[in-house]
């Protein structure tokens, strides 16, 4: 049995930042990740982030991932376990981890769950055919491995991910036939949306996918218009010649370990599904178990890094590590986070968080 002060599950933006902050206060950290690299899904984000300078604006996600991972590997107080999957959490506070076909038991004093999210599917006939992918799946294929998913793509969903991945497909030389969006308005930031529109990709608002075509693989799709009550309008069907259908219809928090730990969970659609109830310090209803990033509610990577910072600071402080500028450090992050969630763009998140914080 390994003993550690703070165990962090997930080496994405939230987990890496949490590890750095907790170690910065003096805590001894064990960071585990199921992949053979650190950085989580940041490693495929080739676009520049925006926001303020503190939020690493204008830096590409891939570079942020590299910087954070290097900083973590340099830090003596952090032990990194890669290719290590957290399988379960036990009542006596033990995390069971599988690494290289061996079981490791870790007993932390504080646990930070930063497991991220998984892509949602959408119901329509033939949605199980090869050629129907999550948008993130295609992003991994193209940006990490340099492999194309097919020749012609229909993107379903015009939120940030749908629009950004569409643009990245164009950069890789893949044709994007169109982007459809069920809502009457494009959800993505205009900075991203205008790039694909300028490149000549049509965005069809108030449209849905009726079905996919094909025997062994996707060979086409039918889209149709939705009325103001979100009902399909007969006679508006349009056939598209595509061999790839990308679903960018949201994510769900990956919360299995939190359920297992007996954390109080709440279904909050604004945060992507079931999420743990937490206090202002990101501590769940189970004392000593903290959350950060998409596992706490689907948001973007910038928010995940700030939540990671807060969870790391709070967990280390609860361990008894004190620094003179603790309050200031926290306030800086809180201010950034509130800034990110302000305005009309953050309305959904604010509504969701109001229900999740007790």
């Amino acid at each position, binding site marked *: 049995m390994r003993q550690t002060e703070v165990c962090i599950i997930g080496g994405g933006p939230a987990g890496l930042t949490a590890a750095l902050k907790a170690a910065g206060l003096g805590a001894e950290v064990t960071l585990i990740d*199921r*992949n*053979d690299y650190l950085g989580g*899904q940041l490693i495929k984000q*080739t676009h520049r982030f925006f926001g303020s300078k503190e939020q690493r604006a204008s830096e*590409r996600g891939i570079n942020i991932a590299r910087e954070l991972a290097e900083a973590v590997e340099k830090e003596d107080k952090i032990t990194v376990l890669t290719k290590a999957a957290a399988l379960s959490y036990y009542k006596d506070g033990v995390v069971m981890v599988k690494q290289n076909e061996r079981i490791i038991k870790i007993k932390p004093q504080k646990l930070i769950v930063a497991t991220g999210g*998984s*892509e949602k*599917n959408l119901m329509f006939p033939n949605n*199980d*055919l*090869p*050629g*129907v*992918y*999550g948008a*993130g*799946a*295609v992003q*991994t*294929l*193209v*940006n*990490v*491995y*340099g*492999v*194309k*998913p*097919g*020749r012609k793509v229909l993107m379903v969903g015009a939120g940030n991910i749908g629009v950004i991945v569409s643009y990245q497909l164009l*950069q*890789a*030389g893949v044709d994007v036939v169109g982007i459809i969006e069920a809502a009457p308005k494009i959800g993505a930031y205009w900075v991203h949306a205008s790039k694909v529109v300028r490149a000549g990709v049509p965005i069809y608002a108030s449209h849905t996918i009726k079905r996919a075509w094909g025997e*062994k*693989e996707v060979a086409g799709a039918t889209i149709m218009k939705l009325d103001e009550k979100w009902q399909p309008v007969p006679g508006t069907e349009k056939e598209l010649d595509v061999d790839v259908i990308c679903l960018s219809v949201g994510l769900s928090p*990956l919360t299995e370990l939190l359920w297992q730990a007996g954390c109080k969970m709440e279904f909050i659609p604004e945060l992507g599904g079931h999420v743990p109830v937490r206090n202002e310090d990101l501590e769940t209803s189970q004392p000593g178990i903290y959350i950060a990033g998409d596992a706490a509610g689907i948001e973007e990577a910038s928010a995940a890094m700030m939540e990671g910072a807060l969870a790391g600071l709070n967990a280390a402080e609860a361990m008894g590590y004190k620094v003179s500028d603790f309050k200031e450090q926290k306030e800086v992050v809180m201010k950034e986070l509130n800034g990110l969630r302000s305005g009309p763009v953050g309305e959904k998140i604010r509504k969701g968080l109001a229900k999740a914080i007790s």
Partner: protein
Amino acid sequence: MRVNEHPILNFEKGNKVMFYYNGQQLEGFTGETIAAALHANGVRAMRESIHLHRPRGLFCNIGNCSSCLMMVNGKPNVRVCVEKLEEGMMVETQQGKGELK
């Protein structure tokens, strides 16, 4: 199909390796996943659904969803989206749930 030119990214390929997909010899590179190598060769069907035997492909590509389980070197239920390619690997479409030896 591989991406040949990219405005931002340089794809550093590993060593060229041979592997087998249902007995057919294909080419890939170390450092990439089995799923990526199969896609580069135009193979998009990874598995068969258990009851209706419908073809299934890659869905999440990061090890969450189990849509891409295949037999690799005789071992069933391998998530080929996260398993790295190695020289001589035998990759096969899995029938049913697979049997553990």
